[in-house]
């Protein structure tokens, strides 16, 4: 098991599983709900499709045991747990690749407590789906419910990410201006834009 000071570049590594599905979704909640329904043991690779927010590449891995999220890892920033979820909390769509793995292949990653997420946290942070979060918590072993940080920390981490917040604003500004043109509202735009 990794200790907190054992921060190597490859602190997250899992053997490749079997790709069972690959698709683009606008709502990550769909993929999380599907993982819960099929009691997925394996992992999702989540890639936001928005070029402006990518700043290169953003890719996240979320592992599951019997449909319940266990660890999250953001490849680009090398962050784990709820920080990784905050990295991935960008407006969709996402490409989602679903991999199945034997439980034993995930055991090393699943023992890395610094990467743990609370079971309901991905649904809350990535999909704003409190009902799905509640169902996920119901499916989780009791001792998992204390895992990781609470959702407040994911929100706090999101608000610390200046680059991403600026990117969201720039994207919204560009979108507003493009749509104003499309909607014949350019005359209403503020002078300083």
């Amino acid at each position: 098991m990794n200790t907190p000071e054992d921060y190597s570049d490859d602190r997250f590594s899992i053997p490749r599983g079997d790709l069972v599905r690959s698709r683009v979704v606008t709502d990550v909640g769909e993929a999380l709900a599907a993982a819960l329904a099929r009691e997925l043991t394996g992992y999702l690779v989540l890639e936001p499709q928005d070029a402006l927010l990518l700043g290169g590449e953003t890719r996240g891995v979320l592992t599951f045991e019997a449909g319940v999220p266990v660890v999250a890892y953001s490849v680009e920033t090398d962050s784990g747990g709820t920080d990784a979820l905050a990295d991935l909390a960008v407006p969709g769509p996402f490409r989602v690749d679903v991999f199945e793995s034997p439980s034993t292949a995930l055991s090393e990653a699943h023992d890395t407590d610094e990467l743990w997420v609370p079971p309901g946290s991905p649904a809350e942070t990535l999909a704003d789906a409190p009902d799905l979060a509640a169902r996920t918590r119901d499916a989780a072993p009791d001792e998992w419910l204390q895992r990781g940080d609470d959702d407040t920390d994911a929100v706090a981490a999101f608000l610390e990410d200046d680059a991403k917040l600026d990117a969201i604003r720039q994207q919204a500004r560009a979108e507003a201006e493009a749509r104003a043109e499309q909607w014949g509202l350019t005359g209403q735009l503020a002078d300083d834009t």
Partner: protein
Amino acid sequence: MVEAFAVASGKGGTGKTTSTLALGMALAADHDVTVVDADTGMANLLFHAGLDDVEVTLHDLLVEETGTHVSEATYDRFGMSVVPCGTSLAAFEAADPARLRDVVADLAGDTDVLLLDSPAALGSKSAVLPVVLADRVVVVLQPTVPALSDGLKVQEYARSYGTETAGVLFNRVHDDAGIDRIVDRASEYFGGETLATVPDSDVVRAARRAGEPLLAHAPESVPAAAYREAAARIDVRAGDEGDVADRFRSAVVPDTP
């Protein structure tokens, strides 16, 4: 004097309509307040204000040549003037959003504060109009990542049209642990003041079921007190009603929703 505020959130489920009516009732203590359900595609204010059985709504004003006067769709309720919108899809489709501009211009001549309950999504021309036309926007947020992200987006849309933020309201807050840190940090990204932090509460849902605004249903509740605090922090500016009416009337407005 009149100042028009769009109450907006960028996503559904944040309690925007509850907030619009609560702020309206609180502001009505000192001002002449008119509340308009400008969310014409997903109208729900009528259910919150006990107006679901009324015959004439904003939809009638937005359909060409019904000959309906604004006053016929304006109801005095809870110390405010309330203009609800109907829920019929056919009426929504028949409505001409350009007429919203005239309706609001008419209302601006006869009130101090205009609150426009605005559509959550910004995906259509008619949906963005309240934010385009208002003097300032009140952004309703939940302390979740998607709600903050969408709130930033709606604020940026508003700013693109020169509509600044009057303040942000954190609504449906579940626990206080860490909320202060979130509010502090969010205030760096959102304009205006943090107006209040309103706790999630069964009393809010009970008010909705009763068809009453929160401040009428449970005026002594903790959320009601938070909304009064929020309203007290909004410094209503005395705009010239003629200017506001002209601005609404002269806005370049799309032909179709």
